[in-house]
Structures are given as structure tokens and as C-alpha cells.
């Protein structure tokens, strides 16, 4: 039994076994998903006319605002492409996304892993970045036919390369097992990082796309006796509240080959 554990942790040999057997676990997760579906059905079916009307109104207003932003965005994107061509840089394409829904949470309290209802059938691949409406949430670590497991950025085994949005200072943000906290590793004591800075993904390591918000710096502790500053950040994504997430497809060619060998995640 102990040998099995050791083999499971330190070698990838048991991975195919898991993948084969995972279909057994699907009915369980479908079963635990029933209450959520019922409540969703209930809210849709028993919603009052007034509520729907006001929600419709609100959504229309929001849509208008976003459409205006979108118009600006088109012009900006075109300008961006032009400038990049001047610089001979590769132009960034719009990322394709797939909307997924949370169907489960890893029961083990030490793992920050959630389960979403998209799998290899929809083209989900290992290492795929996952976002919610507010920022980066994590990455896919295990793909089954209909579901996949997503490692959140707050898991202690997860680390993500980031940069400060204000000035481009780079760092690595790692989870500490707390939903509302990330630590920045090896930030030199005179680095220009302030409280309130937005950290966005830097795209180094080629696993996460560039420029998605990751966290906001909450606290910087500089102790002159130490070589590194202690920087604590709060994830932008609502890791424990978002039900709908986005799976981002990397539009660069050969993304899955890249990501499987990259060292962006894990230490």
C-alpha cells in the first residue's frame, strides 16, 4: 500500500490507470450535482415577472456600455496590430474561450481543486488556463471525457509568473493554501511594488496567456535585514464563488506541446 502511494506521487505510471478508471466516478459527481440543478431549475421556473423584467433592463444597459467599449476596443486593437507590425512583433490574436460550469469541489481540504463540466470531448487539454469574470483562476490538471479538474492558483503546489501592470516588474506568485492570499517569491527588497498594484499574467513559461489580471498586492513588508521583500497579494478571481468559468484556448500553434513541457506551474 505504501509502495502504491510512493509510486503514485513520484512517478507518472499510475496516471493512465486513473484516466481509465475515472469513468466510475462520473455518476457520483452527477448525483451530487442534482441539488444545484434543482435549485437552478427552481429559480428559473419560479422567477417573478417583475424580477425578470428588471434584470432584462439591467442587462440591456450593461450590454450598451460594453458595446461602446467594444467599439473603442476595435479601434485600439487595429492600432495595436499596426504598431506591432512596425516593431516586427508577432500580433496577439484574440483568444478563443469555452464557457464551463463548476460541478464539484475536491473534497480534500488540502487541495484547491475544482471540477468543471467540460472534458476532452470539447477539446479541453491539460495545462489549459481557466478564468472567471474577474481574473485568472487556475489551470486544468486532469482531463476526462466530460469533466476536468482545475488546480486553483491558491493551491500550495501552484505558481504563476506575473508582472506588475504599472511598470512591468516580474515575479512569481505562488499559492499558500489560502483562498485570499498569494505570495510573491523572491522579490528583491528595492523592487518597485506597492500596495494596490495590479498583477497580471506575464506569459513567461508559455502556459498562461499574457495580460489577464491575477491578483492585487495587499501588503508589502520590507525588512532591511533580509534580501527579499515579503509581498502578499489577493487573487482577483473569486475562487470560491464563481460558478461559471472560461477555458481559454491558446491560439498560438502547438500550444499543447508547449504547455506539457513548460515549467510555468509546479515547482
Amino acid at each position, binding site marked *: *500500500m*505504501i509502495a*502504491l*502511494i510512493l509510486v*503514485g*506521487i513520484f512517478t507518472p505510471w*499510475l496516471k493512465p*490507470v*486513473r484516466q481509465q*478508471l*475515472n469513468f*466510475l*466516478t462520473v455518476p*457520483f*459527481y452527477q*448525483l*451530487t450535482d442534482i441539488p*444545484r440543478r434543482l435549485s437552478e431549475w427552481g429559480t428559473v421556473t419560479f422567477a417573478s415577472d417583475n424580477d425578470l423584467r428588471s434584470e432584462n433592463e439591467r442587462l440591456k444597459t450593461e450590454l450598451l456600455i460594453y458595446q461602446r467599449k467594444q467599439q473603442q476596443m476595435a479601434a485600439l486593437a487595429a492600432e495595436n496590430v499596426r504598431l506591432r507590425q512596425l516593431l516586427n512583433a508577432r500580433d496577439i490574436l484574440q483568444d478563443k474561450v469555452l464557457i464551463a460550469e463548476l460541478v*464539484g*469541489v*475536491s*473534497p*480534500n*481540504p*488540502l*487541495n*484547491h*481543486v475544482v471540477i468543471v463540466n467540460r472534458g476532452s470531448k470539447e477539446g479541453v487539454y491539460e495545462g489549459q488556463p481557466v478564468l472567471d469574470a474577474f481574473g485568472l483562476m487556475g489551470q486544468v490538471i*486532469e482531463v476526462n471525457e466530460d469533466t476536468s*479538474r482545475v488546480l486553483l492558483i491558491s*493551491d*500550495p*503546489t501552484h505558481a504563476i509568473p506575473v508582472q506588475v501592470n504599472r511598470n512591468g516588474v516580474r515575479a512569481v506568485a505562488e499559492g499558500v*493554501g489560502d*483562498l485570499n492570499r498569494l505570495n510573491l517569491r523572491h522579490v528583491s527588497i528595492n523592487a518597485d511594488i506597492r500596495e494596490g498594484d495590479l498583477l497580471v499574467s506575464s506569459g513567461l513559461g508559455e502556459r498562461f496567456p499574457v495580460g489577464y489580471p491575477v491578483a492585487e498586492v495587499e501588503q508589502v513588508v520590507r525588512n532591511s535585514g533580509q534580501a527579499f521583500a515579503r509581498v502578499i497579494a489577493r487573487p482577483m478571481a473569486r*475562487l*470560491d464563488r464563481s460558478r461559471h468559468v472560461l477555458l481559454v484556448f491558446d491560439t498560438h500553434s502547438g500550444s499543447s506541446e508547449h504547455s506539457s513541457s513548460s515549467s510555468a506551474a509546479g*515547482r
Partner: protein
Amino acid sequence: MLPQYWNNYFIVALSFFLALVLAIYPLPLDWRWWRPEFVLLLAIYWISVFPLTMSLFLLCGLGLFEDLLEGVPLGEHSLSMIIVAYICILSYQRVRNFPLWKEAGWVFVLVGLAQLPGNWVQSMAGRPLAGILFLAPALTSALIWPLVREFMDRICSHYRIT
């Protein structure tokens, strides 16, 4: 009419199935520490009812299945399961004479013991220990034990499980 042992098998399997569902029922991320170890509680209960016929191999397999279900390294739950089951089989005669509160205390010790291999495996996989919080499932398990015991006793007498 099916023979009596089929009835027994069915109830035992059904109860374990429900325990597995409860074990993965989604909870808010911060509350997961307080989830009782339902599968382990049922294993302890059924060993006290069928001390001679519960199969350690099957319990081990059940633990493996729970590992698969929860997505933790294979063997974590089955290791703690066989440790606890072995202690239960050694001690069931004494524990039978305990009053209920003392039994709950014993369950606290057993579930706490079962947490240790889990923490060991997780720390090997790179996740730091959570301090004294790892005893939280043991505490809730012990608190819920009288309910489980009473409920299962009623089921047993209703379906005449012997």
C-alpha cells in the same frame, strides 16, 4: 425470497454508496475541514456489527475507490482505512461495552489516527500541513457518531440485519 445474507450485502453496499456521495458532496472551500469522514464511520460501524465477516481487502478496495473519487494520490484513504479497520477488529469486544460518549471518544481517536497517513501523503505531494486543523474531521466525526450509531441501529433492526 432472497437469502438473508443478500439482504445484508445490499444494505452494507447501499450505506457505503451513500457515505461516498456524502464524502464528495461539494462544500464551500473553507468549510471542507469540518466534513466528517463518513466512509470511515460506516466502516467502524459495520466492523462492530460483523467483526468476523467484514473483509479487509474489500475495505482496502473501498479506500482506493475513495482516493479515485477525491482525486488524491491512490492509496491514501485505503492505508488509513486498513489501519483503522485492523484496530477495530482487535478491539471490538471491548468497545462494545463502552457507553455512547466513550465510544464517540474512541471514534475521535480512530479518525484522528486515520488523518495521519493522509497528512503524510499530502505533505509528500508538496502541500504543507495545516497544523492542528487536521483534527477537525475527527472532532466532527466524533460529534456525529451518536447520530450515525442510532440511525444505523434502527436500519439494522428494521431490515433484521444480523
